[in-house]
């Protein structure tokens, strides 16, 4: 087993997911079987192979720093689960 239930709990916390006991069991089992399948990558010697992060050669893309139209405050907040006085509203963070 590459991943223990404790690892699953740690990763879930990093990913900001709350898992119940059943989900922890399932994911431990499933992630192990998926990672086991991926073991085959280690059959390849990639010592001198450069990594590919993107398939097309990418450079930084710049544009002129011009003032342009943007969304109105109203449009930005229209989808918010909770908003007040033109701001997104969240639970109290600092006591």
């Amino acid at each position, binding site marked *: 087993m590459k991943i223990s239930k404790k690892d699953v709990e740690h990763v879930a916390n990093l990913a900001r997911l709350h898992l119940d006991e059943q989900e922890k069991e399932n994911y431990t089992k*499933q992630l192990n079987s998926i990672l086991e399948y991926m073991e085959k990558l280690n059959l390849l010697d990639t010592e001198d192979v450069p990594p590919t992060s993107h398939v097309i050669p990418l450079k930084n893309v710049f544009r002129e720093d011009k003032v342009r139209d943007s969304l109105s405050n109203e449009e930005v907040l229209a989808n918010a689960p909770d908003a007040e006085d033109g701001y997104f509203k969240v639970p109290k963070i600092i006591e």
Partner: protein
Amino acid sequence: MELYELTIHELLDLIKKRETTPSEITESVLKRVGQVEDRVKAFVTITEEEARERAKHIDEDVNNEGNIKSLMGIPMALKDNMCTKGIRTTCSSKILYNFKPPYNATVVEKLNDAGTVLIGKTNLDEFAMGSSTENSAFHTTRNPWDLKRVPGGSSGGSAAAVAADEVIFALGSDTGGSIRQPASLCGVVGMKPTYGFVSRYGLIAFASSLDQIGPFTKDVTDCAIVMNAICGHDPMDSTSANVDVPDFTKSLVADVKGMKIGVPKEYFIEGIQPEVKDAVMKAAELFEEMGANVEDISLPHTDYGLSVYYIIAPAEASSNLARYDGIQYGFRAEEYDDLIDLYKKTRSEGFGPEVKRRIMLGTYALSSGYYDAYYLKAQKVRTLVKQDFDNAFEKCDIIICPTSPTTAFEIGAKTDDPLAMYLSDVFTIPVNLAGIPGISIPCGFSNGLPIGLQIIGKPFDEATIIKAAYTFEQATDYHKQKPNL
């Protein structure tokens, strides 16, 4: 013959000859939706009233201008992961169940400019993660050829809508096969363009280095027409390629004489359905009879593609989906203790099992101590997969192979085994890893279910793919078959 059965090019001819109007076409399509949608379930949202109004508007444009735009009055659908201003865009996820984007994706603007009529937003596997649409938070779409079977995925709604004549064409997105695989299973034409050819601005991100938008159409001619409308550089997408877009309709020439076609031996593995193999082999013979030079080739790292994909795509997804936290838009959990708990409860209640599984996998692959072993390793093997294609394209112009190892499978058959589900994309994934273009076209049937032929090309050489696909289509009539709904 009903209008909804026709293709883009047939309908445009009728509009030009003033034998029909955009409103008549839209009414015909909406009638069809009314007849079959409760069985097919291709849509998440149907924009019936907006469509009628839009069609009326275009009626006037046709009368006033007399200048027919490339898609004027053509009813279409969009996969529900493309932002449509003021129209609900859900990614088939509870976490975006009420999200109305404040802007249009670039492809939506481009289609609007070309004169299309939006009929609705189509169902997908949640956040495009899946191969069957069974991962949708709302419902499973049915394959129009057999309602007990899946349409494929993740763009299963778009594929089924076109196959069932509920729209004339549709757009989907393809990260590991999500256009080509459902096109294959539903017996329609589906193209994934070269990475960077179509703007991703307004496409809700799954795996940013792999995602690409493309068309579902009823034939190859329509594919070329839609490609003309959606390709091109976009300053709003920093990964958009700054290359010239050819007129793809110029490639609609039935001629493959002297074309060099490679058939990769690694794509005829154990586990492939025999009828699929036979149909693709017959297609290779037909190309040879029509004057192409068909030869066996090798793509030696094919077998590693799936592992590479299921590290890179979840890693990118875990990062892209970090934004769904219940603060700015979408679903927020009702009960929580503090801010961190709000995040956790919102995400746990808002995401479905497959999305959570991939977030977990991706977070693990990127986490401290495992990055080199998984993510970096996968990126290196990605280079090897890409080099396989580079080497092959030194010898051949296109590659042909099956799109999917099997025809459509039954609903529920693979839901308990994530790996078995992942394997249905084994022939489409390497194309995404290499960033190159591919198409799926109908090439046969097995027990009444469509089989797809995949044609893969060099980067930005969609023209050659379209030419080969068109030549095959002219010599066969698989694309003219319709499901009995």
